[in-house]
């Protein structure tokens, strides 16, 4: 293997040291290329997502219909396809960012909101609001209830698993919290007097971007923005955390604040997403793993690329569910789980030996 190739497969955020090689420049370029490629991919998928659907509209026409009035094509693109495209873009982004943030915080490649039962807990929060008729499906109460649910579950798992818990404890705690939330939701469904409401809730729980409007986009966007800012501001602290909490503190990092930023950001992002799109899991788990071969393990450097990969993944998945030939559209939450769970198992199998003892 040549030195050049070696540089690519052994990523680092190293410095130009006495050896005289300027590695910062090498890493900077490869990360920049990755980020640009992902952004381009997102733009292409964005256009594709506007073009795919029962009404045949070419990608070029779709973009035209978006920016200028093209009659019925504009109505389809702007009112039907644009909302779901924007939602998959920002929800994918925040899920990827959340996954990278939580993996950095817990120093654990298996951390993700889905593993912590956060989507189920957020769903329970939203279902409780819907069930008791506290608010309609398009009210601010819904995302706030979902955020509260997600916050409780993530905080609970992080607290129960503690600072020195192993991966096993972490996953078991997540399983317990997720199961409890799932049971709560089942209880609400089984006690519901209205069969139509039950169908609504069940379909919503499966996770989908179908039939979403710009109102949904408007409900989720402010929360996604806040969550993004919280998670991105935690980058430098996550770096130091790679050497343990005590060392991070000695390097001047406020670890309690860092934990709050990430847990809070993860809960706000997940809650708002679940409130408008239902339960969509595993994007956050997968995304950081896909970019580490290119950008290395420095948690601060994985955040933005992981968010972009998340956006690309969810955009692609939302295009795929519309292309899969079936009577009714396959729910995107089902698709991400079908693809995400085997990936989760694969990560466990590959890292079995180290995971057995790795403290979280």
């Amino acid at each position, binding site marked *: 293997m040549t030195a050049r190739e070696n540089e690519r497969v052994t990523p680092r955020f190293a*410095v130009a040291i006495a050896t005289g090689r300027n590695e*910062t420049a090498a890493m900077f370029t490869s990360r920049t290329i990755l980020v640009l490629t992902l952004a381009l991919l997102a733009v292409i998928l964005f256009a594709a997502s506007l073009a795919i659907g029962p009404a045949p509209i070419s990608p070029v026409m779709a973009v035209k219909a978006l920016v200028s009035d093209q009659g019925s094509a504009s109505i389809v693109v702007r009112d039907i396809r644009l909302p779901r495209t924007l939602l998959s873009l920002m929800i994918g982004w925040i899920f990827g960012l959340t996954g990278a943030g939580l993996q950095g915080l817990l120093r654990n490649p298996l951390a993700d909101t889905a593993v912590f039962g956060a989507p189920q807990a957020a769903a329970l929060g939203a279902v409780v609001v819907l069930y008791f008729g506290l608010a309609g499906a398009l009210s601010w109460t819904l995302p706030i209830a979902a955020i509260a649910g997600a916050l409780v579950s993530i905080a609970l798992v992080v607290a129960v698993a503690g600072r020195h818990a192993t991966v096993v404890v972490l996953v078991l705690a997540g399983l317990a919290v997720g199961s409890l939330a799932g049971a709560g939701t089942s209880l609400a469904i089984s006690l519901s007097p209205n069969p139509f409401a039950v169908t609504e809730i069940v379909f919503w729980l499966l996770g989908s971007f179908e039939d979403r409007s710009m109102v949904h986009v408007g409900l989720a966007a402010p929360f996604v923005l806040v969550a993004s800012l919280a998670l991105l501001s935690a980058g430098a602290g996550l770096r130091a955390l*790679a*050497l343990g909490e005590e060392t991070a503190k000695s*390097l001047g*990092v406020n670890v309690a604040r860092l934990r709050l930023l990430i847990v809070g950001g993860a809960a706000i992002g997940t809650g708002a997403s679940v409130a408008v799109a239902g339960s969509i899991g595993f994007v956050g788990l997968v995304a950081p793993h896909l970019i580490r071969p290119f950008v290395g393990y420095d948690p601060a450097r994985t955040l933005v690329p992981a968010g972009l990969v998340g956006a690309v993944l969810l955009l692609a998945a939302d295009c795929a569910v519309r292309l899969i030939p079936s009577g009714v559209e396959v729910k995107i939450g089902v698709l991400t789980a079908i693809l995400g769970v085997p990936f989760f198992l694969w990560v466990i199998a590959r890292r079995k030996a180290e995971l057995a003892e790795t403290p979280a």
Partner: protein
Amino acid sequence: MSTLSARSLSVRLGRNQALSGIDLTLTPGRFTVIVGPNGAGKSTLLRALAGLVEPTAGSVLLDGRPVGRMRSAERARAIAYLSQGGQVAWPLTVASVVALGRLPHGEAPDALPPSGSEAVGTAIAAVGLGGYEDRPATELSGGERARVLLARALATKAPVLLVDEPIAALDPRHELVVLEVLKAHAQAGALVVAIMHNLTLAARFADEIVLLDRGHLQAHARPSEVLTEARLAQSFGIAAHIAHEAGGFVVVADRPLPQA
């Protein structure tokens, strides 16, 4: 010049009174070793000196200023701390781990200014790991990883360096390598404090020794004054004899004394 001192320092951890009324003044250019039996409060003292635990009474002062009231970045620039049994969570390269020592200066490890790069390079060279820059720190031996983490602490270029059991689990050669680095750092003008269990090596390398027992300061003086047979019996509960060798002395532990 930085002087680090504890004034009637007491720390309570839960129901355990870890430290009671410690008065201690440490000066630059000296290599101080803290010794004491397990549970004596050595790590708590070091963490309190580093400003990582709040005193329940008394204070820790750096040049007369309470460490607890310094801004965290300022404290981190002044006091480098190396925890016991340090870990590296991700397969980061040696250079990137050491570059974390520049965080208190507000320097991102992936965009170091020339002064930061120089500090990192010097620290890696000081621990004898030149050529290891691109190796993942997680794939190194225990001795090598301990030196990487020490280099991380050195890279901060803080006037005070506090290290918790830097030679635990190291082979005899690495013990000497690490102690020589610490000693040289002190001789270059830094205030260096280390916790150690190896009394013979402590006697050989330390300029002064702090003996702790059950949270109390028993002695703080030159090695030959602190490591006496009477003190070893009293604090460690061992019958030991001191063998004088050329250039130092050896502490030979004979047997545990019956518990009082």
